[in-house]
C-alpha cells in the first residue's frame, strides 16, 4: 500500500511541479504586469503544493530521499505527470486553456480529498483547495474574456482549447495504483469528478462563446512516464544545476 501511496503522491507532485515550471517560463513576458504577477502567484502556489506532496512522498518511501531529490534527480521516464501540464505555453490563450482544463479538475479533486482517510493528504488538500479556487476563477475569467473578446482572441482561445483537448482524457484514467487507494478511502476516484469537470467546462465555454471540442481519441501515457517530446527539454533546463553540480547544498 505504501508503494501505491508513494506513486500516487509523486504523480500529483509531478503535475504541480511541471505546471509550475511552465508558468514560471512566462516570468516578465506577460501581456501586462497584473498577469505577470498572477501567473507568478499561481506558479508559486503550485510549487508549494509540489513541496508538500514530494516531502510526504519521501516520508512514505522511507529511503531518505527529500523533495529536491525527487524533483531534480529523476529522469524523464520516471516523471509521471499528466501530459496536459507539460504542453508548451503557446500564447496566453493556450496557457489559460491549459490552466482551465487542469484546475477545473483539481478543484473538485482537492475538495473530495479533504475527506481522505489519509490525514496528511487531507491537510494538503485543504490548503490546495483554496489556492485552486483562485486558479480556476482566474483561468475561467480569462477564457470568457478572450473567448468573448475580439475575433482574434476568440480564434486563439478556441485554438488553445482545441489543441489541448486530447490531453484531457488522461485526467480520468485510473490504474491499479489508484484503485487500491480508492478502495482504502485514501485516493479519489477520478470518474466521480467527471460530472463536476464537465459542468465547469461547459459553463465556462458557453459563457466564452466557445465550442466544446468533440471527444475523440485521447492521448494518455504520462502516468506511466511516456511523455511528449516537450518534457525532456523542460527537464534539462529545470534540472541543469543539480545535474551539473551534484551533491551540493543550495
Amino acid at each position, binding site marked *: 500500500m505504501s508503494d501505491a501511496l508513494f506513486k500516487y503522491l509523486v504523480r500529483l507532485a509531478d503535475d504541480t511541479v511541471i505546471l*509550475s515550471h511552465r508558468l514560471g517560463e512566462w*516570468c516578465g513576458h*506577460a501581456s*501586462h504586469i497584473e498577469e505577470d504577477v498572477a501567473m507568478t*502567484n499561481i506558479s508559486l502556489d503550485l510549487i508549494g503544493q*509540489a513541496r508538500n506532496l514530494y516531502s510526504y512522498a519521501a516520508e512514505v518511501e522511507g529511503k531518505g530521499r527529500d523533495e529536491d531529490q525527487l524533483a531534480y534527480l529523476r529522469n524523464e521516464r520516471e516523471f509521471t505527470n499528466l501530459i496536459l501540464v507539460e504542453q508548451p505555453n503557446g500564447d496566453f490563450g493556450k496557457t489559460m486553456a491549459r490552466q482551465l482544463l487542469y484546475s477545473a479538475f483539481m478543484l473538485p479533486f482537492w475538495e473530495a480529498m479533504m475527506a481522505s482517510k489519509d490525514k496528511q493528504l487531507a491537510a494538503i488538500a485543504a490548503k490546495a483547495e483554496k489556492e485552486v479556487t483562485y486558479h480556476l476563477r482566474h483561468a475561467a475569467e480569462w477564457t470568457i474574456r*478572450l473567448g468573448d473578446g475580439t475575433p482574434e482572441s476568440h480564434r486563439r482561445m478556441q485554438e488553445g482549447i482545441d489543441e489541448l483537448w486530447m490531453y484531457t482524457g488522461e485526467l480520468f484514467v485510473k490504474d491499479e495504483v489508484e484503485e487500491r487507494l480508492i478502495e482504502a478511502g485514501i485516493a479519489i476516484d477520478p470518474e466521480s469528478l467527471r460530472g463536476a469537470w464537465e459542468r465547469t467546462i461547459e459553463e465556462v465555454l458557453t459563457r466564452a462563446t466557445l465550442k466544446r471540442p468533440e471527444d475523440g481519441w485521447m492521448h494518455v501515457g504520462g502516468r506511466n512516464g511516456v511523455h511528449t517530446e516537450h518534457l525532456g527539454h523542460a527537464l534539462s533546463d*529545470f534540472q541543469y544545476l543539480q545535474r551539473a553540480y551534484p551533491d551540493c*547544498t543550495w
Partner: protein
Amino acid sequence: QEFLDAFQARIDDEQKIEPNDTMPSAYRKTLIRQISQHAHSEIVGMLPEGNWVTRAPTLRRKAALLAKIQDEGGHGMYLYSACETLGVSREELIDDLHSGKAKYSSIFNYPALNWADIGTIGWLVDGAAIMNQIPLCRTSFGPYSRAMIRVCKEESFHQRQGYELLLTMMQGSDEQKEMCQDSINRWWWPALMMFGPSDKESIHSSQNMAWKIKRFSNDELRQRFIDATVPQAHFLGLEVPDPDLKFNEETGHWDFGDINWDEFVNVVRGNGICNKQRMKDRVAAHENGAWVREAALAYAAKRAAPQAAAEAAE
C-alpha cells in the same frame, strides 16, 4: 512666487503633499520622472531574475525567487498607480519606457550569469536600492512615501534572503564559492554606480533636496552602503574587487577606489550588455500581449453596453 513659498513652507513643515493638492509643475514633473523610473526598474528587474526561475536549484529557492519576482511586479503596479495620481496614464509611461525616453535602473543591463547572481542581486542590488529608498519613506509626496514604506519592507526581506543564499553557497563546494566570488566581482562596481553620479556631477540634486524628494546626496548614500556592505562581504568570505578598499580609522568609513564613470555613462546611454535585450524583451511582451489587452477592453465594453442601456431605461 507666493505659491511656491507657501508650498516650500509646507514641505519644510514635513507636511505630506497629496495628489489633489496644487503643486509646482516642476515638482510634479520631477516626481513623475522619478517614480516612473522606479516603476520601470521594478518591471525590467524581473527579467534577469526571470532568466533563472526555470533553473533554480531547489524547490525552496525556486519558490523564494518566484515570490521575490512577484513582489517586484507588485511594486511596479503600486508605483505606476502612484504615478497615475499625478495625472499620467500607465500606457503613456510604458510607451516612454519602450521608446527609450524614460530610463530604468542601469543595473538591470548587466546579465545574471550564474546562480550566485540571484543572491548577489538580492544582497547588493536590493541592498543599494533600499539605501536609496529608506529616506524616500519620508519623502514629501504622500503616495510615493507610502509606496516606499511597503517597498522597503519587502526589499529588506529580499536582501536578507539574498545574503542567506550566498552564505549557503559559501559553505558549499569550491565551485559554489567560485560562483559567489565571480558574482561579486561582476556586481560590486555596478552596485556602487546605482547611487548615481558623484555629487559634483549630479544635476537634479539641490532642488530635489529642498523639496525633500531627495534627502541625502548620492555620495553620502554610497558611502553608507559601502560601510554597511564591506563587513558583510568579509563575513561571507568574499573578496571585494577593489584594491584601494581600506578602513579609514580616522573617519570611521571605508575608503574606496575610483569608480569607472565612463562605464556608467556608457550603460546609461544604452550600451550596457543587456540594454537592447531588456528592451527587446519588454517590447515583445507588450506587442505579443496586445491582442490580450484589446480583447479585455472589447469584453469590458460589451459588458458595459447592456448595463448602460439598462441604467438608461430606468
